[in-house]
């Protein structure tokens, strides 16, 4: 039996076992974990082979769908996206097993949760492997359906139910567009098998339409602005390992879909690259701005997923522009940056969500302004979270910087050689990336600083302690991966060599730019290592300097107040971000309830600020309620008077007969 078959079937079996054995939290989790580990083991060899050799692995399952037998193909692109699916799945499951243990829901059948967790994995694997429009759509829908039940794990909370609703609605409406995409594309080859598509037969206008369909349809899943609205709802509602899996891995399927559809459409044109860049800039900048305005940690992280998807799109957009301009350097660096950022983001965003989960477990709250001082209480979690934050801000010597550097360089190289018309999206990329980087840094200084530093702002935060090893080991692994990719960039860079080749047209050879890139990345890794070594050195010097000096600890200066209450006088997340959110208030429209004290002896005053998603507020909610109003007009039909019901029949008949007599039928 082909390994691809096992890859597909093992997690499913694990899920089923978990479902049947679902009363026990531990055993069901172990079943799921076993299934996913099986998938990892069976995937390891083929994925490695494909990524280093660049050859496809194919297998056919005897299966009579409407579309015929089920063809599975593992090409480098699929293999690259498969990597996080199979590697992170078990890690998160391990974490989740421990994380779920403190949910004391009596009578809750935990098997359901784990079944759908594995089903999600199966769905993603099938999405990556299948090569037929229909089976792709089925797999896609399964993949979209599974998280619906995962989000509903806290089904007693209204927010979770609302989130699940928004999530599935978004997924389904996106799915409709994808269905149209495949069917319309299928008309070119009279079959939905990817190999039979003949995009060159389609008119340019239709190709643009198809690209639009695919871009929006997959964009919903990827969380591209403005169709990102399900992310900030679903991620906070789901259990943390699920948010990690969704935000780290599942939304990347949208990116995979976009790349695959561009490949199926026979390579990009300049306009598409431009669209990707524009979408990337808006998602990136607005995503990070929305994130800044949040003070629920998981919501904040969710918006950062939007931002990072934006960065990925920037990279891919630069690559597409490079392809359409016939510039191998631009193409390779852009695409490589985008692809590598897919991998990196799944690592650090996954870790950050796990960290959020640990905090939630220990402090029973994710309201940033109620936390604080956790670095002393949960040192390992804090360390991992800090590393993750630095990585997501794209700071050297961590992995985030590597991918962003590639994108920067692609854009730079492009704008020096391109004409004015072709250069402006690249310059936009540069400015956008820089702004995103700065704001992201601000946002994560806020998050880490307020959560882990200073003194605790609530009693649960003060009582918090470190989590068990089952929960921090996965985070440590991921943190190590962040540093590893940063410090051994050239080797990991090789991962994207063949996935790139899938997307590049034959006319562009990736080899020369690759050599240059490897050289630069080597230096960068060395400098990164240098920073670490030098810091150690300076730390040593400082240690010797301070050895014979007086080192004393004093309370933080209480600003002259008589009884300073350090915890309550601290800067909060909202106040930290205030200056920025004020500046961008035209975009954010933050709500502030409460008032500032006016009179001489002010009474107790509460101040609360919140920033609901502007697009939901000002775009989608009005739209949906408008449709509802319009359809409400039809409801007078059913008024209950049987005579008029009969009149309907007669009238219909009469109209049809007149139409017939008039020759309109």
């Amino acid at each position: 039996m082909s390994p691809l078959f096992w890859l597909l079937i093992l997690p499913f079996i694990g899920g089923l076992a978990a479902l049947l054995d679902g009363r026990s939290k531990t055993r069901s989790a172990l079943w799921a974990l076993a299934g996913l580990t099986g998938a990892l083991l069976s995937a390891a060899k083929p994925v490695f082979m494909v990524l280093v050799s660049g050859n496809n692995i194919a297998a056919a399952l005897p299966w009579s769908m409407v579309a015929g037998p089920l063809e599975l193909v593992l090409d480098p692109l699929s293999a690259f996206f498969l990597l996080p699916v199979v590697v992170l799945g078990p890690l998160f499951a391990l974490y989740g097993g421990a994380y779920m243990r403190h949910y004391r829901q009596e009578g809750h059948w935990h098997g359901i949760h784990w079944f759908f967790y594995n089903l999600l994995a199966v769905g993603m694997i099938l999405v990556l492997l299948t090569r037929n429009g229909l089976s792709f759509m089925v797999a896609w829908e399964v993949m979209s359906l599974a998280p619906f039940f995962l989000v509903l794990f806290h089904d007693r909370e209204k927010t979770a139910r609302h989130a699940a609703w928004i999530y599935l609605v978004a997924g389904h409406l996106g799915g409709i567009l994808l269905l149209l995409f495949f069917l319309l594309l299928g008309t070119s080859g009279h079959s939905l098998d990817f190999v039979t598509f003949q995009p060159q037969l389609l008119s340019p206008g239709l190709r643009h339409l198809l690209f639009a369909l695919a871009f929006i349809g997959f964009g919903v899943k990827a969380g591209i602005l403005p169709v990102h609205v399900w992310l900030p709802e679903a991620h906070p509602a789901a259990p943390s390992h699920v948010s990690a899996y969704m935000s780290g891995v599942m939304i990347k399927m949208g990116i995979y879909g976009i790349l695959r559809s561009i490949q199926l459409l026979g390579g990009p044109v300049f306009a598409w690259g431009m669209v990707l860049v524009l979408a990337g800039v808006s998602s990136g900048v607005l995503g990070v701005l929305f994130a800044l305005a949040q003070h629920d940690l998981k919501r904040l992280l969710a918006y950062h997923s939007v931002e990072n998807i934006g960065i990925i799109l920037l990279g891919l957009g630069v690559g597409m522009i490079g392809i359409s301009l016939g510039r191998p350097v631009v193409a390779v660096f852009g695409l490589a940056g985008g692809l590598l950022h897919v991998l990196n983001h799944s690592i650090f965003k996954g870790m950050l969500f796990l960290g959020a989960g640990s905090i939630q477990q220990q402090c029973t709250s994710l309201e940033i302004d109620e936390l604080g001082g956790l670095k002393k209480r949960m040192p390992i979690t804090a360390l991992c979270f800090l590393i993750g934050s630095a990585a997501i801000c794209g700071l050297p010597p961590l992995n985030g910087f590597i991918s962003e550097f590639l994108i920067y360089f692609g854009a730079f190289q492009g704008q020096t050689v391109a004409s004015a018309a072709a250069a402006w999206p690249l310059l936009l990329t540069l400015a956008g990336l820089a702004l995103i980087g700065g704001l992201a840094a601000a946002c994560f200084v806020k998050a880490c600083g307020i959560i882990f530093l200073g003194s605790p702002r609530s009693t649960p935060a003060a009582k918090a302690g470190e989590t068990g090893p089952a929960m921090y080991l996965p985070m440590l692994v991921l943190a190590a991966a962040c540093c590893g990719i940063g410090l051994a960039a050239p080797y990991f860079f090789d991962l994207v060599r063949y996935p790139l080749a899938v997307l590049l047209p034959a006319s562009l050879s990736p080899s020369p730019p690759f050599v240059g890139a490897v050289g630069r990345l080597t230096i960068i890794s060395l400098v990164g290592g240098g920073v670490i070594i030098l810091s150690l050195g300076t730390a040593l010097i400082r240690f010797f300097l301070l050895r014979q000096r007086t080192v004393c600890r004093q309370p933080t200066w209480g600003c002259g107040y008589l009884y300073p209450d350090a915890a309550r006088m601290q800067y909060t997340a909202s106040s930290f971000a205030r200056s920025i959110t004020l500046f961008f208030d035209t975009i954010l429209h933050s709500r502030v309830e409460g008032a500032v004290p006016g009179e001489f002896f002010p009474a107790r005053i509460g101040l609360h600020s919140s920033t609901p998603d502007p697009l939901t507020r000002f775009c989608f909610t009005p739209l949906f309620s408008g449709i509802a109003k319009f359809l409400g007009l039809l409801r007078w039909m059913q008024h209950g008077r049987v005579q008029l019901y009969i009149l309907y029949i007669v009238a219909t008949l009469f109209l049809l007969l007149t139409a017939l007599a008039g020759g309109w039928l």
Partner: protein
Amino acid sequence: MLTLMSLLLFLLVLTNLTLLGSSRLAFCIRTVAVQGVVLGCIPLIGLHPFTLQHGLLSLSAVVLKGGVFPWLLLRSLRVARVKREVEPFIGFSVSLSIGFFVLIGSVVFASRLPLAGHHNHLIIALAIFTMVTGLLLLISRRKALSMVLGYLVLENGIYCLGAAVADHIPMVVEFGVLLDVWVAVFGMGIAMYQINREFDHTDVDRLTELRG
């Protein structure tokens, strides 16, 4: 024989206009009965060569529509103790005049109907007129009973149309149709009885609990 036929047709028109015009339920029931008898006779005269089957069919039709139905309906009228008034939405004079115009219209319409080989346009016209009358009764009357009457008149019209246009409807089907009509009226009678029991009125337009 033609004179007899024209007499029957005249009766048919008369019954329809009476139904549109009259206000007493019992009287309407009897009128419908008369109409049934009239229609039962029409096929016997002139349309087809007389056969045993046709005779049987007409006979049963006459018995059913002239005898059984009125008896059933009058009985339910008595049982239900409904107010004996029709209580229409549309006034009698208005519906009468509507009926008049419909009559003319259907005659005109039937005369230019492309019925190859069917030469009895007048019967078709009156069939249409009867159907429309039935629909008018169905739509414009308040009482459950008068709706049943409307349904009966509609059926009569269709029966008449069938007699006129379709000369090869098998007997089995004809009888099946009759059976169905009979069951239908029977069922409606029971329904009226139940309505009367549950609501102690048979005002159909007050049955508007179920909406939306």
